[in-house]
């Protein structure tokens, strides 16, 4: 699920997120062993100085006096090691960053890819701002973590283990005391961690929500202004920001509790070591020097534990972000590519629809009992009211969705078995949504076929008789179309879409006619272009213009998810059914006026 998942992550451990995450990011494993080894030696390097101090105290300051030479040798060799650790640290840190960046890149790209594989239904139920958040801000939470937290986890854990080993060498009894005192931290951390993860997950939802609302305030700017809706919108945006703030402060509770708690346990451990050490020291064979050293070691334990508490917060944010991304990756892809793909034949393609039914996951039947044969090269008009199922029918022909039951055969091949590359090339839909990419007219046309050159695109423009139109644009073929293509009129966007389709040279063309009225000059150009494009191909038009229906070989009338009438225009008009009614309404609507 992408958005609005009601599922809470009760009782979910960080481990399960981690397990899923590791499976989703194979980059993590590349050279991981070596990197971890290096990180461990860097962590070991952190203990050089404390060990040196112990050594100097033990070996140089003896009862007989100070051995300066020995101290100097110890110190200078440690200096060499510390300088060495600088270089090791440099290499290691960069390796970690490299791994992290590769993981993030892979995750971004795979998530992006997956989102594009999801069905239209999935897309229309998610806000674009939220989808964008998944590949940007959610991944960014992981970036933060990768740059600091992940490194700290490795280095701190190594340091904790090493210090514990040295402690045991000094006194196993005192080590046991320290361990026992830290034991309660485990259940407390676990409890807090689960709550914290939930708090952060909720926070990510709030963040997506803010993005969604802000995105609406941007896209809907004109509507907001003409309706004097600015102040209410401002309140809504502020509310969303406030809700995000509130949730941030809920998360802050855990943030400000976890670390101090671990510190308190560390202090208690030191106090107890002092008490136990002084009281039972003699019995346990601990000298005063050793006890002082042990307290020093306890302090060394506090630092990495504190640091872990510090990164735990960041870890939770990252896990919550990761969780959201993994949820996207786990969303099932409805349209599965065939295992043994079959290419479509070339030339005009016939269509056979056999016993097709379609229903959305949530709703009732949209199409039922659809059986129809469209011969190759025919021009077919599909008409019907809103909700009659005609657009869904068009989508099934282009495999934007698969029928719930029955099958669609194009060129004699079941669409489910057609190779995606061949399908994209030979079956082309021109949607009424005239979305264009924010680049030039020519580039938008070139998108029609992979690897098409500018010359190919210009040829398509000429073939459809669009040269004059393009010549009239500000910068000709290099005119920028603006975001969503909104720099062009609705009709002009359709022209670009037609040229695009021409470039692909499909055998089956599905046209979803624009409902918006188009200015007359463009309209004339559009009709001519449409005619030229249709020549030699099977065309199925979801028709809103009567002229389209009049011109076509076959008219299919949809009503309530069924084909209720089919035949040529004149025959249907004579029949006096639904289509005849539609026709009359059209005549009544316009012709009498002029």
């Amino acid at each position, binding site marked *: 699920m992408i958005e609005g998942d009601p599922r809470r992550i009760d009782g979910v451990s960080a481990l399960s997120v981690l397990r899923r995450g590791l499976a989703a990011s194979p980059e993590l494993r590349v050279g991981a062993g070596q990197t971890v080894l290096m990180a461990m030696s860097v962590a070991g390097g952190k203990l050089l100085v404390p060990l040196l101090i112990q050594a100097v105290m033990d070996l140089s300051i003896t009862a007989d006096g100070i051995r300066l030479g020995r101290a100097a040798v110890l110190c200078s060799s440690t200096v060499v090691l510390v300088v060495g650790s600088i270089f090791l640290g440099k290499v290691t840190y960069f390796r970690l960053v490299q791994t992290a960046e590769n993981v993030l890149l892979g995750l971004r790209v795979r998530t992006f890819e997956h989102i594009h594989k999801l069905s239209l239904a999935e897309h229309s139920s998610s806000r674009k701002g939220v989808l964008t958040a998944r590949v940007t801000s959610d991944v960014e939470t992981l970036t933060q973590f990768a740059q600091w937290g992940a490194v700290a986890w490795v280095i701190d854990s190594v340091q904790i283990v090493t210090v514990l080993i040295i402690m045991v060498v000094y006194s196993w009894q005192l080590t046991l005391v320290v361990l026992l005192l830290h034991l309660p931290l485990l259940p407390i951390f676990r409890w807090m961690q689960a709550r914290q993860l939930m708090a952060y997950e909720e926070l990510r939802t709030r963040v997506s929500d803010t993005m969604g609302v802000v995105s609406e305030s941007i896209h809907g700017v004109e509507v907001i202004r003409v309706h004097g809706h600015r102040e209410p919108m401002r309140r809504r945006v502020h509310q969303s920001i406030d809700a995000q703030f509130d949730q941030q402060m809920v998360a802050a509770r855990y943030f400000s509790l976890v670390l101090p708690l671990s510190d308190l346990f560390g202090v208690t451990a030191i106090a107890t070591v002092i*008490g136990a050490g002084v009281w039972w020291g003699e019995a346990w064979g601990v000298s005063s020097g050793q006890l002082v050293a042990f307290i020093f070691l306890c302090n060394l334990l506090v630092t990495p534990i504190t640091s872990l508490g510090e990164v735990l917060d960041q870890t939770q944010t990252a896990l919550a972000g990761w969780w959201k991304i993994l949820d996207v990756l786990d969303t099932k892809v409805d349209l599965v590519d065939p295992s043994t793909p079959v290419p479509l034949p070339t030339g005009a393609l016939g269509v056979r629809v056999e016993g097709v039914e379609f229903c959305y996951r949530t709703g009732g039947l949209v199409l039922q009992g659809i059986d129809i044969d469209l011969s190759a090269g025919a021009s077919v008009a599909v008409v019907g009211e809103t909700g009659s199922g005609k657009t869904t029918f068009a989508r099934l022909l282009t495999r934007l969705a698969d029928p719930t039951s029955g099958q669609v055969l194009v060129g004699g091949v079941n669409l489910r078995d057609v190779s995606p590359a061949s399908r994209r090339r030979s079956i082309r839909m021109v949607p009424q949504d005239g979305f264009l990419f924010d680049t030039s007219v020519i580039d938008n046309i070139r998108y029609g076929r992979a690897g098409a050159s500018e010359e190919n695109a210009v040829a398509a423009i000429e073939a459809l008789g669009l040269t004059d139109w393009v010549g009239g644009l500000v910068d000709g073929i290099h005119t920028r179309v603006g975001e969503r293509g909104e720099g062009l009129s609705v009709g002009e966007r359709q022209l670009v879409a037609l040229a695009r389709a021409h470039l692909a040279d499909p055998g089956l063309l599905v046209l979803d006619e624009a409902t918006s009225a188009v200015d007359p000059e463009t309209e004339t150009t559009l009709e001519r272009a449409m005619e030229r494009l249709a020549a030699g191909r099977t065309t199925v038009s979801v028709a809103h213009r009567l002229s389209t229906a009049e011109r076509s070989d076959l008219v299919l009338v949809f009503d309530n998810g069924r084909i209720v009438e089919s035949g040529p225009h004149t025959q249907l008009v004579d029949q006096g059914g639904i289509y005849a009614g539609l026709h009359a309404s059209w005549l009544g609507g316009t012709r009498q006026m002029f």
Partner: protein
Amino acid sequence: MLGVRLGCGRPALSSESGYTVPESVVRRGVRLVWQSLRLHPWAHTAAIMGANVFALAVVGFTVVIGRITDEVIIPGLDGDGVTRGSVVGAVMVVVLVGVVRTASIMVRRWFNMLATVKTQRTWRWAVTDRFLDVPLAYYRSRPAGQLLAHADADVEVATSMLKPLAFSLSVVVLALAALVSLLLVHPLFALVAVVMFPTLTFLNRQFTRKVEVPAAAGQEAVGTLSGIAHESFDGVLVVKTLGHERVELERFSSSARALREHRLAVGRLRSKYGPVNYALPQLGIIVLLIVGVWLVDSGSVSIGDVVRAMSLFSILTLPMEILGYLFQEMPRSVVAMDRINGVMAEPVEPRPKAPLTFKHGTERAVEVEFDAVGFTHPDGLAVLNGLNFSLEPGESVALVGATGSGKSTAVALLAGLVPPTVGEVRIGGVPTTVLGPGGVAASVATVLQETFLFADTVRANLTLGRDVSDEELVGVLTAASADGFVTGLENGLESVIGERGVTLSGGQRQRLAIARALLRCPTVLVLDDATSAIDPLIEEGILAALRRPTFAAGNRMTLLVVAHRLATIRLADRVLFLNDGSIAASGTHEELLDVEGYATLARAYEMAGSQLRGDGN
């Protein structure tokens, strides 16, 4: 009041290619901190106090351990033993100092988080407020994804350097306390510290300078990436029908790869400076140790003094690390802040000093006048030139003209979306520039070409948050012929419609948009090609409903319709023929048929506008 604090009037970043370094990062960092401090002084103060108490508690802890070593441990284990009371006392003192330390951490973290998050909220408010207040032209030049990034990622990153702020400020107290203690032990020890810390500061500043350019580029790349993703998901239907997933993926991944390169550049610098930063204090302790041993040998200090000096020195390393973190975050933060300041430097739409509004909902009769109106785009393209016309109260007028004749611009001017370049648009005798957008909206309702619906319920989309009775809602839905399909929706008025109203057909969306406008009981209703997707018969019904008297005094709405359908045009009392940015002719449809240009256009409309059941689903 919030916004003013933000903008220092320095649009520092050239957003296109080639990042230019405007001013020292540290100076900008200090200014960023100062801005946040002035916004939320109390939270910051509490956090800094907490951090300083922590610093003192840490030093206190070393002192306590030192004394316990001398007075409890050594006599206890090497000497004659100690009383149970002194052992318990020692344990209690350690725990007590520990509790103070713990409490101080809690205070620091909570209030530091509060200050950071409050600053985020303030800046988010400010940025989104500015979005709502800038002239419309601002939106045309920027992709939505980038604007989103300003409100989200930029604010997040700008405040990320506030997180280590309190802790690193406590380094001052800690350094002073430690220095004094070191000085008390032996001047040579203090000297080591005095040499050490400026070196660290120098290294930090050098890093900060070097990392700025890749950090800025990285932040910029996040914006680009977000823009690409947003566009790609927005155009998903086209992507799918073109089978364009591969190309989109390539576009996105090459942008993501560019981002990775910038991040790696930052990582390379970090891996160069980070370990040095960490190792320097370590080397300092070694120097301290060897000097200490030598001093013990010469008899000027005791072993206990050396141990204490080293503890103090190592205490200093944690806040120094945090200070390093602050310096490392700084470039990213100030660059993000520059981008926020860039938004804040955008001038807001001019608002009248004393906006006039009309009383709502009673009988009103206002006249609309376009007086010698000209409009020229910022790029110099003149759209309207000497546009003169007026609409009588209650009159219904069709605005007709070829593509590019300036119809939509005229509508935008009337709706108060943009101000005229020359001349005046007056509503009820008052210029729109005096009325202000709110004032215009009080009497004029405009339904735009592209219908925008919020991802909310039908009800919320109609009322836009106002309190409206169900009767009123049903009334306007009926007038807009939308009652039928709304009742048919699963949850009626409470049905949630998707972003951009995707779950509805074009015609249904337009009908809701008309109902939304009607609900505001406008004196003047403007339909900018707003019925194009509606079935002609239904449209006729809607237009007839709009012609009925709506006000107590029996007045009708003034109606201005931009249309391409002859049927629509014919319903109007009068037709204005717009040609080349000014009115070429005015009169009834029949009268205008003699006008050259109009007749051609009308004939073309008849041919083209042959729409069959416009309600595409």
